[in-house]
């Protein structure tokens, strides 16, 4: 077996990193290099030449030092890496504590057949610095080591097929899900992208409109009288042109970003894990062990949902790098794709389970919470109209529209939130759903439930509601049942954590039980 072998000696990373490191250092030094090269040209003497030489050799030397000063150790019971020449740092992880092994390959590494391996222990508090990273192993060796590390932490249960039994060589060969270019249509509809578009369009428009008269005047003075009559037209054309360019950038930008990050996405099933691979240039591979999957989240922003799309994330115990406890399972894709994958991951079609509604009191709260701020806004607009006393019908209509639009938007949001709100209890899963602008359906495996948090403001108590959080080690720490009728709590608790809440329950004489 070539590549990483178990032993007692400290070994260097793959020597091909000697090429990668200087390239990286050079890229990091580009601004400084430009300055030095420019200065050297200006100086035009021997000194400048020496500086130029140093500027090129410096990064090269740094890269070589970085390579030479990093060593790693694999023993049957631990894995360790040692960094640094002067300040030495050693990170050690017992093999039994390894929870995650993720592989990433930047473009330069991919060209050379290298990957970087991040070994995580699943500490909720761990930061990037605490993770053990082997930056630069041969790709084949790294994936063998990955299988090996994950296997040594796997269950006692049935013996694992040898890692070299290729995961996609089974009877149901091929990935569970793979990227389709048409998925890129969801990229500009992402909630954050949309907010950016709206903000940029608004500020761009106001900027252009503010400077338009000034622009016209300047054109007038510089281009003479011939342009005087055309100046307003030029202004309008400029506005249209700028807005068009801005919109293009804001649409094309997210699409390109999604293509680079999600392009080449595929989800594979290995004997006891899910493996997500994605990225056109930098390729990253995340392995999600079955034992770590506490559930899934179907994430649907308003616009993406209207376009028929959804994002699927796992609720994972033991965070994975930047994604925390919510590793991506399916990027923005048609909702049926996300839901089908969710059903495969959970083993049951839980995300499409019919929801139990939270009742009239919870719906009333959706309405009051959406309408109260909109009502205030409308009242302010009406007060403004009364103060200004618009004379023309057009002005009057504008004021009326300004007062009615927030109310209409709020009503739409409230109705949509009412549709989304609910939960479902399946034999082995709890399903929750809420939200409109950012709708989330969460499914939690009951084996992963830790405890309860029941929270009620005076307004909620008056209506007999409470926001119930079922805590778990995975994801963000809990799944939330928004505005659950308090009379439903006992039944829910009996299903989710049988017996746990019983000693703390008291008969609710006043309220009649709601029918199931």
């Amino acid at each position, binding site marked *: 077996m070539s590549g990483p072998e178990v032993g007692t000696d400290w070994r260097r990373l793959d020597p091909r990193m000697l090429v990668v490191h200087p390239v990286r250092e050079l890229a990091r030094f580009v601004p400084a290099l430009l300055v030095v090269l420019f200065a050297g040209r200006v100086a035009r003497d021997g000194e400048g030449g020496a500086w130029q030489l140093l500027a090129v050799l410096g990064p090269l030397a740094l890269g070589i030092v970085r390579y030479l000063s990093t060593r790693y150790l694999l023993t049957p019971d631990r894995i360790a890496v040692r960094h640094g020449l002067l300040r030495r740092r050693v990170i050690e992880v017992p093999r039994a504590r390894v929870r995650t092994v993720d592989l990433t390959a930047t473009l330069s590494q991919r060209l050379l057949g290298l990957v970087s391996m991040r070994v995580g222990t699943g500490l909720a508090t761990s930061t990037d610095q605490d993770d053990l990273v082997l930056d630069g192993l041969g790709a084949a060796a790294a994936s063998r080591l990955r299988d090996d590390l994950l296997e040594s932490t796997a*269950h006692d249960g049935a013996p694992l097929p040898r890692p070299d039994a290729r995961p996609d060589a089974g009877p149901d060969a091929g990935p569970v899900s793979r990227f389709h270019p048409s998925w890129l249509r969801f990229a500009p509809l992402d909630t954050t992208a949309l907010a950016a578009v709206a903000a940029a369009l608004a500020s761009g428009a106001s900027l252009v409109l503010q400077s338009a008269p000034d622009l016209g005047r300047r054109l007038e003075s510089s281009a003479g009288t011939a342009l005087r009559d055309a100046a307003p037209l030029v202004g309008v054309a400029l506005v249209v042109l700028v807005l068009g360019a801005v919109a293009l950038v804001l649409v094309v930008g997210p699409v390109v970003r999604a293509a680079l990050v999600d392009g080449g996405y595929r989800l594979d099933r290995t004997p006891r894990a899910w493996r997500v691979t994605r990225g056109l240039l930098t390729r990253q591979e995340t392995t999600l062990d079955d034992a770590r999957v506490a559930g899934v989240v179907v994430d649907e922003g308003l616009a993406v949902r209207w376009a028929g799309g959804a994002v699927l994330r796992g609720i994972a115990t033991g965070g994975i790098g930047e994604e925390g406890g919510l590793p991506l399972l399916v990027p923005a894709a048609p909702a049926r794709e996300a839901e089908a994958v969710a059903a495969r991951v959970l083993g049951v079609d839980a995300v499409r389970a019919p929801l139990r509604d939270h009742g009239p009191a919870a719906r009333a709260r959706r309405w009051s919470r959406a309408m109260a701020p909109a009502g205030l806004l409308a009242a302010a607009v009406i007060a403004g109209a009364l103060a200004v006393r618009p004379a023309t019908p057009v002005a009057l209509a504008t004021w009326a529209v300004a007062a009615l639009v927030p109310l209409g938007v709020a009503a739409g949001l409230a109705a949509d939130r009412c549709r989304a709100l609910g939960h479902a209890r399946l034999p082995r899963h709890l399903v929750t759903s809420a939200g409109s602008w950012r709708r989330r359906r969460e499914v939690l495996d009951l084996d992963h439930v830790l405890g*309860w948090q029941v929270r009620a403001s005076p307004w909620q108590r008056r209506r007999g509601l409470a926001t119930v959080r079922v805590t778990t080690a995975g994801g963000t720490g809990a799944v939330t049942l928004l505005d659950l009728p308090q*009379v439903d709590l*006992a039944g829910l608790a009996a299903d989710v954590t049988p017996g746990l809440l019983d000693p*703390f329950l008291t008969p609710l004489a006043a309220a009649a039980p709601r029918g199931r």
Partner: protein
Amino acid sequence: MPSAAALREPACAVDVRARWLWTAQGLGLAVLGALALGVGLPLLGPAWLPTWSVVPLLGLGVTLAVVGAGLRYRWHRYEVTPEAVYVQTGWWTREQRLAPLARVQTVDRHETALGRALGLTSLTLTTASAAGPLRIDGLRREVAAALARDVLERAGRGGDGTDQHEHQQRPPHPQQQDHPDPEPGSPLR
């Protein structure tokens, strides 16, 4: 299981002295705020806000401190059974947190300077969830120590929800525990 049942309040109130502790803390804040205003208003305050307005503001602060401490004492309750720990906090938005003892990971005791003088301790129990710990304030020192001991005895019996070997029982790791020596043969040596 009656379907029309609600969570009752936890059985135990915290120590009565907690009320004096919280009152004292609130009064301290009120007096500090009043002092700051008393110095700041003549120098920086707007003309329409005279310096003597500190007096009614101080009165308001004192009232809030006394009433707030009373309400906090009324609603902050806890209960520990052989299976679970149950804590209630908050007089406005009320929150009840419940965790099985088997899932408790760490038990942390801490005392403020004023709390030490009154012999009062806070207890923080964490689980593997990132959604927040269970915290009991204003316990008598001996009660807190006994509770911590009881909880630690039963903690970690069923795995903490993160371990892939749920059958392999991990000992609880209280934060007071000393760090073990680095492994022999550690390259740092």
